[in-house]
């Protein structure tokens, strides 16, 4: 447990020293802020309503839903270096010959990126402050939205971490991670609205963004809770097994 925290601390510090992490963080914040002020309607099709628009209701829902969608790309970018860089630079050799277990390494890395992600989320509260200056945001929705973002982040970052254990090339880790998340977030979303019964119901059960919607509405749905937690646990488990497989491959 202690060593997990030692590893997590180093990992988190590495994010704060890394220019790449700042760029990814900036893109995440810029994307969230863009939706907050302008909404998103490519080719005139409104996907996200602007949150801060005069005359409309000041609902936080589009903001959270946009942040969740951005995470499909941001999560693999944040996690790409976790294991891939260790493989690439050879530091995995010194790491794995120290008295640490594979479980400690994976959990340490996961907690490290969760720490950086939590800091990133905390900085988006600035948008709430802006909103509070003009209207009365719903505190309940804000709280459940952030809980949802943490849970969704845990699941997405675990998927990204798993992708990173597969390869020494960070770019490959990103592509694999985005592909996996796209299936569960974007593709299932699409199938849910375009397929007939019973396929649309099955797709809905697998759609991460659909689960997230309940948090963005201000409710805490235990099904969503279970979905995100088990997804995180599954992919952490797979990461540990992939790392272990190095020993018998």
């Amino acid at each position: 447990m202690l060593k997990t925290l030692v590893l997590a601390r180093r990992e988190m510090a590495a994010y704060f020293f890394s220019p790449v992490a700042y760029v990814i963080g900036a893109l995440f914040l810029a994307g969230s802020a863009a939706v907050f002020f302008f909404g998103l309607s490519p080719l005139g099709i409104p996907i996200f309503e602007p949150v801060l628009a005069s005359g409309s209701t000041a609902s936080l829902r589009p903001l959270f839903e946009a942040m969740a969608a951005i995470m499909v790309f941001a999560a693999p970018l944040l996690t790409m270096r976790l294991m891939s860089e260790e493989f690439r630079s050879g530091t995995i050799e010194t790491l794995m010959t120290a008295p640490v277990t594979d479980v400690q390494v994976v959990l340490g890395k996961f907690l490290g990126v969760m720490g950086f992600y939590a800091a990133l989320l905390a900085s988006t509260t600035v948008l709430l402050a802006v909103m509070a200056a003009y209207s009365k945001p719903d505190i309940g929705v804000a709280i459940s939205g952030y809980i949802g973002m943490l849970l969704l982040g845990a699941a997405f970052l675990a998927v990204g971490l798993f992708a990173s254990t597969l390869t020494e090339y960070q770019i490959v880790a990103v592509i694999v991670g985005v592909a996996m998340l796209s299936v569960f977030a974007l593709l299932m979303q699409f199938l849910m609205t375009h397929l007939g019964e019973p396929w649309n119901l099955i797709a809905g059960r697998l759609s991460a963004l659909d689960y997230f919607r309940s948090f963005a509405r201000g409710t805490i749905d235990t099904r969503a809770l279970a979905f995100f937690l088990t997804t995180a646990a599954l992919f952490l488990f797979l990461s540990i097994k992939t790392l272990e497989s190095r020993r018998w491959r």
Partner: protein
Amino acid sequence: MIDVKNLTKWYGPVLAVDNISFHIEKGTIVGFLGPNGAGKSTTLKILTCYLPATSGTVTVAGCDVLSQSLAVRRQVGYMPESVPLYGEMRVRDYLMFRAALRDIPSAKRKAAVERVAERCWLSKPEDMMRRRLDELSRGYKQRVGLAEVLLHNPAVLVLDEPTIGLDPAQVRSMRELVKELAGEHTVILSSHILAEVEQICSHLIIIAGGHLAAAGTPAQLRQRVTGPSKVIAELRGADGEDLAKAVKAIKGVREVEHTAHGNWTRLVIAGDSDADLRADVAAMAAEAGYALRELRREVGSVEDYFVQITYQQNMQAGNRVATPA
């Protein structure tokens, strides 16, 4: 201290290490020699629990590397060949981080870091400990790597090519340091620079083509290259055949080869024991009235031996890739 039995490692269809067995005593400095691609690094990676063996057993300080991996890792300090470090960290932070991973209690970490920094010449210049690791030169990175393996005072140190990339002054101080470490630590260092290994190591293990080619002290290996004893003499006074016959008559001479060098005859005399045949050859020449121009004992270097056996191994190198059944 270290026991390797029938160690074999396949990388897919490539046989990297083929049935190697050896034993290393506590407190010795062992040189691990071999040409590039001989299987040195692979063997060291198995010893340090980084890679699993395909078959065979390895025990370090009484613990099996596979079933008691954590116990082995606690007692071993391993510096890989490339000295990988986290570039964004500072020297002190890195050493503190590694000290924490090495189970050093937090109250003692600072003292441990100071101790190894002093020992590995990192305490000067003043700001060295605050520098970023990716800004350091190769030599300083190497020192940080060495400092790191000394942090927890491990019983066994495994250094893969510790002097590669260092300047001559640094190579010398690295050697001195390794020598100092003997006694309280068991040190295994790999190298393909023979002169260096001959100087610091009390034992040598030579592997080539994945096989154990030879093991022993440098003196023992030197002896093997020359055979028990070899004397070169150049004589004049009779034709080659007769000279060879006369020399062969000396007690203790096993074999004589002769070649003509102008009107002198060059004789390579192999004896059967450790005995020095020079005095006997000189006495024979004086008695028979032959002129003697040169008389010396051939002392082989480990290098000769190394070249000799690795050459043999290279001839068989084709056998290392399995043919698909």
